[in-house]
């Protein structure tokens, strides 16, 4: 059988976006998903589309990805429920305000204007549902949220429409490089041949890298979320806090989604998760302190998804130093949903050896092999 131009390992949003962009450029593409598409982080995400508070190397990517979110309807035939509600980071204390001021100064020094500082009265006018004690906040007005599973499915459909093949229930279990082609061994004993590979295996990205002889310190988390019953509308933006983890939004139906950082326990072997009640409770306290409207509400659902995470909390995007036709697109943690429309295109370009449109050196798969590594982000990065 004729070899593929590209095999993508992993049918999450990152892999499906890569498949879409590659197939659109005319490549023969196959996506291999061990489970079902959207079964892991991409289907469980909180759907936050956030440029606010990003690590510096991610900022140019996040801003360009945001432009793509506003064009998804044209691009993939579905707007994915994207609502440009704005995202807000609230300051609870004067110390928090100082952190936000420093953040804005850092961004301005790098030429970025998308995060705007508001003082107490101004933020309370903008977010009347917030506790009257809030000291101010940082706002990214074009940010918002979308529907995670719908988005993942929509990219899958668009990739197939562009000609990609998607196989569910097929795991890649081995890899050999033979005559300038990759021969990937599959869980059913068969194999496929391809010119290039993109490893988009999410939290399993390190396992999959090892099949190719590569190694990087990719860890994983079971990020937890909660949903309240439907409440009368009281907030339109997605809100976070400055020194406590929080991501908080009210959906059109009135449910409030609370998350942004508390972690349960994940089992990579079974793909199962366990909630951690103490950390969910802390999350409930943060939400209650900042938003009085939920004090008498009830939580109807909690869940967790397994996401990858690198020690510096930014993803792995780049070619393997061992083989230029092997591309990594994994290690996305609580903010990989927003980046996916663009990072899939970057991976497709890398796999096809097209010119790079964005600076990606900071995301190199080898960065932890280098002796000294400086911190990359100025703020804690909540999911959402």
């Amino acid at each position, binding site marked *: 059988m004729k070899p593929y131009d590209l095999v993508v390992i992993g049918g999450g949003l990152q892999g499906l976006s890569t498949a879409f962009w590659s197939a659109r450029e005319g490549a023969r593409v196959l996506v291999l998903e061990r489970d079902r598409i*959207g079964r892991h982080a991409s*289907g*469980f995400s*909180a*759907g936050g589309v956030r440029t606010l508070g990003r690590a510096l190397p991610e900022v140019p990517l996040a801003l360009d990805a945001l432009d793509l979110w506003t064009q998804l309807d044209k691009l993939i035939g579905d707007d994915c*429920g994207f609502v440009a509600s704005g995202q807000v980071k609230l300051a609870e204390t004067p110390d928090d305000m100082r952190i936000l001021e420093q953040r804005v100064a850092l961004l301005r020094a790098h030429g970025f204007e998308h995060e705007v500082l508001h003082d107490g009265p101004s933020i309370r006018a903008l977010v009347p549902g917030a506790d009257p004690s809030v000291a101010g906040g940082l706002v990214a007005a074009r940010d918002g949220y979308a*529907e*995670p*599973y*719908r988005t993942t499915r929509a990219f899958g459909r668009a990739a197939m429409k562009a000609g990609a093949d998607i196989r569910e229930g097929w795991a890649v279990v081995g890899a050999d490089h033979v005559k300038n082609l990759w021969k990937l061994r599959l869980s059913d004993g068969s194999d496929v041949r391809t010119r290039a590979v993109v490893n988009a295996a999410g939290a399993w990205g*390190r*396992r999959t890298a090892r099949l190719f002889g590569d190694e990087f310190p990719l*860890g*994983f*988390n*079971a990020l937890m*979320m909660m*949903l*309240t*019953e*439907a409440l009368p509308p009281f907030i339109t933006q997605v809100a976070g806090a400055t020194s*406590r*983890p929080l991501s908080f939004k009210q*959906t059109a*139906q009135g*449910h409030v*989604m609370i998350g942004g*950082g*508390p*972690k*349960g*326990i*994940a089992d*990579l072997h079974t793909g*199962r*998760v*366990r*909630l*951690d*009640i*103490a*950390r*969910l*409770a*802390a999350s*409930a306290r943060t*939400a*209650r302190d900042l938003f009085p409207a*939920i*004090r*008498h*509400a*009830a*939580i*109807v*659902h*909690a*869940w*967790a998804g397994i996401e990858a*995470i690198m020690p510096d909390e930014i993803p792995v995007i780049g070619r393997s130093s061992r083989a230029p036709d092997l591309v990594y697109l994994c290690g996305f943690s609580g903010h990989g949903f927003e980046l996916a429309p663009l990072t899939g295109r970057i991976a497709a370009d890398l796999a096809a050896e097209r010119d790079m449109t964005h600076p990606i050196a900071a995301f190199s798969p080898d960065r932890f092999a280098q002796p000294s590594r400086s911190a990359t982000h100025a703020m804690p990065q909540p999911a959402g």
Partner: protein
Amino acid sequence: MSALRRHYTRIIVCTEDTAPARDGDVAIVALNTIWHAEPGAVWISEPDGIVELTCDHVDLPETALRLRQAIGLVQDTTEAPIAERIDPFGLASLLDSPATPERDAQLLAQGQEIGPVAFLRAIPVARLAAYGTGQPPPRPRQEEP
């Protein structure tokens, strides 16, 4: 204040309005006091708040399907209809729709899809917030050897 987490060898769940009982390694809990269950753990109401009981074995009624699933006793889809997966957003609407046998069957099917983490009963924010105090340290990221 009582401990927030306790371990038992065995937890027996009763459908009747049973008085909770603890006898050494065994705890008897009433179904209607369970907020949430996972393999090896149940969260129950006690007068001073939510308590997490962990256990090696759970005995529970055959009819408590969502609880059986949450505990990990419904292993395949034979007991639940197969359904298209719904978003976290859609699941919330399903959870507040009236509790009919069809809705419960749908919840069971979604449970197969998303894992046993949907609460069995809604938990008031205030009650959950009263579990512990302060900000626990972030759980370190997990890593494979």
